[in-house]
């Protein structure tokens, strides 16, 4: 089930998204972050929310690079949503997967030595919605959204 979802997302055509960044090298993290920032700015998000989105993308891209070695960050704006314009960020990889999703969402939990262990839980806090699907041996998908605030 999760495996299929990952495959569908990774096979989805690039034109369905505004930004698709393949994460395979360390530099790609900064590229993904920069592209997310630009898209959020164009979509009219406040500077505070632009920063949150860029930071969340940075965390997701780094997780792909660190744990899966390779994957994708896909971002699209949805302007016609009932609840107003929003940006959707999807991170997908065919990496080792996560056996205990609850555990990795615990603040301070990390398997990486140089890390604060707040990446994923941080993303959840920074964004408005957060879903994670993972299966050991298949990969991991994180789907997250941020709505544009009215002022």
């Amino acid at each position, binding site marked *: 089930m999760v495996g299929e979802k990952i495959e569908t997302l990774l096979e989805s055509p690039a034109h369905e998204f505004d930004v698709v960044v393949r994460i395979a090298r360390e530099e790609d993290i*900064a590229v993904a972050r920069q592209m997310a920032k630009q898209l959020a700015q164009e979509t009219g998000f406040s500077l505070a929310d632009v920063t949150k989105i860029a*930071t969340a993308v940075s965390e997701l891209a780094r997780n792909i690079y660190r744990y899966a070695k390779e994957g994708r960050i896909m971002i699209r704006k949805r302007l016609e949503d009932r609840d107003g314009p929003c940006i959707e960020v999807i991170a997908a990889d065919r990496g080792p997967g996560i056996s205990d999703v609850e555990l990795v969402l615990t603040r301070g939990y990390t398997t990486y030595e140089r890390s604060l262990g*707040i990446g994923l839980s941080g993303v959840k806090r*920074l964004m408005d919605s957060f879903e994670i699907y993972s299966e050991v041996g298949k990969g991991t998908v994180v789907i997250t959204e941020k709505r544009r605030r009215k002022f």
Partner: protein
Amino acid sequence: MKMMTYKDRVVPILRVADYLLVPIQIDLDDSTVGRLQKQLMEEIERTRARAVILDVRMVEVIDSYISYTLSETAAMARLMGCRTILCGIQPPVALTLAQMGVVLQELVVARDLEHALVLASLS
């Protein structure tokens, strides 16, 4: 430790009295923040500075790894007898870090550069 070449230097480091002033005006990607750490350690060793002031006014994104590395750098500096003072965190960056629950351990945070210089002189 191998001496750094000009290319390895990622930021200008200004020497002011016994302090090192480091204006960070570049996008901090992972390898840059690592090289920044190395450059700082070498400068601290070479100059025997009492304090390092990191000015992050121009930095638009500080994520958990950058936070981790900055704290780690400060911990290393402390072991070399040098304090690290951070100043200039932009409001959206402060908001993001606070929301994520990042604690910048080992770092002294100043309001601005002037305040950072006062704190540096106290060390």
